[in-house]
C-alpha cells in the first residue's frame, strides 16, 4: 500500500483527521518573554493583560510539571512548541460570515458545523476556535438584544475590559498549577460569555475547537459569568487532525455563577486519539473550574471524553455560596492505547451545599482509565451532602480501570456517600441481544449506551445524538 492509500485508510478511522491548507502566522518557536510580548502585541492587548501574562510567566519559572498522574508521557519540550498560530487571512478580522475564507468555512462543513446553516437552522450560537484564534461568532444580533455578551476572549479584552479584569483569574489564579499557569501566560483566544442579571439565555451557546497546524499547542481560555438569577447552557466540542507527533492542549475554563444563577457546561471531546499503536494524538491537559459564588447558584459539568491520547482533567466546583449545587456527569471511553485520568473535585465551603458525581468509565483494548476525585466538606459547610457513583466497564484483560476517590468529611452535619463498581458486559446480555438479531458490535453499543444513559440524558438534545454515535464509533473493533 502506498502512503497515499494509507492516508486514506487512516482517514476512515478518524473522521476528523483532515488538515486544512491555510497559511498560518506563527509566533517564533519556544517560550520566553518575547514570545509572550509577541502574542500580546499581535492581539493589540492593553498593558494590564500583558502584565497578567508576565506575572504568570514569572510564576511558571518556579513551577515544576506535576507527575503524580497515572498515565505517564514522554517529557514535553516546551521550547519546541509554537505558542501562537493563526490563519493568515484572519489578520484583519472579518466583519461577517460572508467575509470568511471559504476554505475555513469548508473545514467547518467537514466537521459538521456549517456555521451559517447552524446559525439558521439550529438556533445555536457558535464561536469557533480554529487553532488559537476565534474565527466567527454567529447569532450575535439575537444575543445582543438580551444584553448577552458572547464573543472571543480577545474581543472581550478590547471591548469589555472591566468584566474581564474583574473575573479573569479569580477561579484559576495565575499561581495555580503548572499547566494552568502556562495557559495564563500564553493563552491566545477562547470564548467569553456574560449573561446579565435575570436573563435566561434563549439558546445554547457553543464553541468548536480545532487544532489544525502541526507542532502547535492550543491554549484557549474560556470565561463564563452568569450574573444574578441568570441561566446559560454552554456546549463545547473538540477535534484535531491526525499527526504522528503528540500535540498539547492546555486550556483553562473558568465559570462564575453569582446568586441564583445556573451554568450548564457540556463537552464532547473527540481530539485525535493516536493510531491503533498509540502513536500521535493529543495530550489533553485542561483545567476547568467553576465557582458557585452566590447563594443558590448551580454549576453542572457534563463531559463525554472519547478522544485524546491522554486525557488529564478534573472539572471542579467550588461551592462557596450557601445552598449552592455542583454536579458532574462524565462518560470517558478509552480504546487502543488511550489513557485517561479524569474526575472531579467538589469543594464544599458554604452551608447546605450539595454535590452529585456520576462517572462512567469504559476501557477497551490496551487502554487505561482512572477516575480520580475529591470530595471535601469543610467544617463550616453545615448540612451539606455529596453522592458519588463511579462505574467502570472493562472489555478484555489488556486494559485497566481504576478508581481513586479522596473523601474528606470535616463536618458532622454532612453526609457523603460513595459507591463504585467494576464489571464487564455479561455473556447473558450479549447473548440476549444477539439472539434478537443484533451483531456483536451493535449489541455492545446498545449495552454501553444503556450503561451511560444517566449521563447522556444530561446532554442537550443535539449533543446527545452525536455523543451516542461517538460512543459506538469509539468502541469499534474492541469486541471479539
Amino acid at each position: 500500500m502506498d502512503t497515499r492509500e494509507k492516508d486514506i485508510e487512516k482517514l476512515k478511522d478518524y473522521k476528523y483527521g483532515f488538515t486544512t491548507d491555510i497559511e498560518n502566522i506563527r509566533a517564533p518557536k519556544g517560550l520566553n518573554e518575547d514570545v509572550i510580548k509577541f502574542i500580546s502585541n499581535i492581539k493589540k492587548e492593553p498593558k494590564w493583560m500583558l502584565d497578567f501574562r508576565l506575572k504568570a510567566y514569572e510564576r511558571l519559572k518556579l513551577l515544576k510539571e506535576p507527575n503524580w498522574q497515572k498515565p505517564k508521557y514522554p517529557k514535553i519540550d516546551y521550547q519546541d512548541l509554537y505558542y501562537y498560530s493563526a490563519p493568515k487571512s484572519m489578520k484583519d478580522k472579518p466583519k461577517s460570515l460572508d467575509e470568511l475564507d471559504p476554505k475555513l468555512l469548508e473545514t467547518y462543513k467537514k466537521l459538521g458545523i456549517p456555521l451559517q446553516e447552524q446559525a439558521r437552522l439550529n438556533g445555536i450560537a457558535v464561536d469557533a476556535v480554529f487553532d488559537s484564534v476565534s474565527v466567527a461568532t454567529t447569532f450575535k444580533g439575537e444575543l445582543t438584544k438580551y444584553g448577552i455578551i458572547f464573543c472571543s476572549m480577545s474581543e472581550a479584552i478590547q471591548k469589555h475590559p472591566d468584566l474581564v479584569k474583574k473575573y479573569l483569574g479569580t477561579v484559576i489564579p495565575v499561581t495555580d498549577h503548572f499547566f494552568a499557569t502556562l495557559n495564563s501566560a500564553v493563552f491566545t483566544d477562547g470564548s467569553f460569555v456574560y449573561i446579565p442579571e435575570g436573563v435566561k439565555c434563549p439558546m445554547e451557546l457553543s464553541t468548536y475547537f480545532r487544532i489544525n497546524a502541526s507542532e502547535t499547542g492550543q491554549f484557549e481560555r474560556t470565561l463564563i459569568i452568569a450574573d444574578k438569577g441568570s441561566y446559560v447552557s454552554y456546549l463545547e466540542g473538540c477535534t484535531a487532525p491526525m499527526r504522528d507527533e503528540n500535540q498539547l492542549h492546555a486550556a483553562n475554563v473558568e465559570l462564575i455563577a453569582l446568586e441564583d444563577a445556573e451554568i450548564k457546561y457540556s463537552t464532547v471531546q473527540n481530539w485525535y486519539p493516536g493510531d491503533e499503536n498509540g502513536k500521535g494524538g493529543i495530550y489533553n491537559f485542561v483545567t476547568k473550574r467553576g465557582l458557585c459564588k452566590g447563594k443558590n447558584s448551580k454549576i453542572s459539568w457534563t463531559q463525554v471524553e472519547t478522544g485524546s491520547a491522554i486525557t488529564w482533567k478534573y472539572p471542579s466546583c467550588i461551592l462557596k455560596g450557601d445552598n449552592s449545587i455542583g454536579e458532574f456527569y462524565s462518560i470517558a471511553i478509552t480504546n487502543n492505547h488511550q489513557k485517561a485520568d479524569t474526575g472531579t473535585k467538589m469543594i464544599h465551603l458554604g452551608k447546605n451545599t450539595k454535590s452529585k458525581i456520576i462517572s462512567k468509565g469504559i476501557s477497551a483494548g490496551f487502554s487505561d482509565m482512572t477516575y480520580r476525585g475529591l470530595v471535601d466538606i469543610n467544617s463550616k459547610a453545615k448540612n451539606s451532602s455529596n453522592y458519588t457513583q463511579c462505574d467502570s466497564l472493562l472489555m478484555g484483560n489488556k486494559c485497566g480501570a481504576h478508581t481513586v476517590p479522596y473523601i474528606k468529611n470535616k463536618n458532622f452535619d454532612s453526609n457523603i456517600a460513595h459507591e463504585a463498581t467494576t464489571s464487564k458486559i455479561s455473556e447473558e446480555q450479549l447473548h440476549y441481544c444477539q439472539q434478537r438479531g443484533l451483531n456483536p458490535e451493535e449489541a455492545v453499543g446498545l449495552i454501553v449506551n444503556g450503561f451511560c444513559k444517566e449521563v447522556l440524558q444530561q446532554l442537550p438534545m443535539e449533543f446527545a445524538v452525536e455523543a451516542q454515535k461517538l460512543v459506538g464509533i469509539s468502541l469499534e473493533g474492541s469486541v471479539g
Partner: protein
Amino acid sequence: MSEQLQSDFDKIVKTSNLSNEEIRFKKIFLDNFKKKGFPNRKQEDWKFLDISQIIKKNISDLSFFNDYSQSNKIDPSIFVDGLEHNKIIFINGRIEKIDFNFEDQNKIEIIDETKKDISLDCENSLIDLNSAFTDKIFKILIKKNYSLKKPLIIYHSTDDKIKSTNINLRLDFELGENSCLKLIDYFSNNTAKNFINIFYNFNLESNSILKNYKIDKFRNNNLKYSFNNIEQNNNSVSETFILSAGSDYIKNEINCNLNGEYSSAFINGIFSLKENQQHEIRTTINHLVENTKSYQLIKSVLGKNSKSVYQGRIFVSSKAQKTDGYQLSKAILLDETSEFNAKPELEIYADDVKCSHGSASGSLNEDSIFYLMSRGLSYQQSKELLINGFLLDVIEKITDSEIRNLIKNIIGVKE
C-alpha cells in the same frame, strides 16, 4: 536527628553483644533510614496523617536507644482472664517470654532469625527503622496439619523504665500446610510518649488459616505503627480484626498478597476515637491469581477533635480473573470537630471481576434517635444504642465465637 540515630545505634552496639555480621546488616538499614527519614505528607500513603509531624509535635525528645541487656519484670495483672491461651510477652522492646504451654511442642518451632540476612526490598522507611533497632527476630513455625489448640496472645506492654523511646518488634510466622493460628495482639501500655513500631510477616501455606485480632483499647499517649505483610498460598484464609481505640496515634497497615488460587482475605476494623486521637488503617489487597476473594469492612465512631483515615486499595492483576473484591467504610461523626477521611481505591486490569467499594459518612440519624426516645429512652441511651448496633455489625464478622465474646466484653457492646 541523624546524629542522634547514630549515637543511639552505637550505644546499642556497645550494650548488647551483637556479632559483626549483625552490626553490618543493621548498619545498612540504619543508613537507609537516615537517608529517607520518617515518612511525611509528600508521600501519597501518608497524605492524611503525617507521621513525621506527629512525632515532632508529640515526642520532641525521641530516643532510639533501648537497653536490651536487662530483662524486665512481668506483671501478671495485664493477662487476659477467662480464656486459656499461649503467651508471648513483649515488654519495653524485649521479648521476655514465649510460652506455648497448651500445645504439642513438636509441632511448633521457634527459630532465632536475628543473625539471618533479612534484607527486604521495601520503600517504607519505618521498616528500615525497625530492622536497624529491633532486638531479636523470631520466626514461629507451625508445622503441617497442626492447629493450635488455644489462641496465642502477644502482650505489648511498657513500664516506668521507658519513656519517649522508639520501640521495635519484628516477628515472622510461617503456617505450614493445613495449619491454623489464632493470634491476638493485646496492648496495655502504662507509660506515655513512646513510638512503637511493629512489623509482622506471615507466610500462609496452602489450606492454612490465620486469624489475627489487634486490640488497642486502653487510653494511652503512645504513637504506634503496625505493619502486617501476609503472603497467601492456595486455599488459605486470613482474617484480620482491628480495634483502634486506645493510643493517641496508630496506623495499622495490612498488605496482603493473594498468590494462590482460592485464597481469601478478610479485614474488619473499628475506630472508636475520642479527644485528639488520630488513627489510620491502610489496607492493600493484591489479587494476583484467579479465583481469589477479599472483603473489608471498616467502621468509625468519632468524638471530639478526633480524626480517622481509611485508605483501602484493591489491586487486580490481569491474570486474576474471577476476582471478588468488596470494601465498605462507614463513619459516624459525633462532634463538629471530628473528621473522617477515606481513599478507597480500585486498580483493576482484568475484565471478568466483581469489585466494588462504598464509603459513607455522616452524623447519627435523627429519625432513629427520635424513634428510640419516643419509646422512653433518654437521648444518651438512644445514642449509645445506635452506636452499639453500628459497631456490632463488625464484631459479628469475627468467626471465632470465643474470641468474639472476649472482644465484645472488652469493647463493652451488648447484643
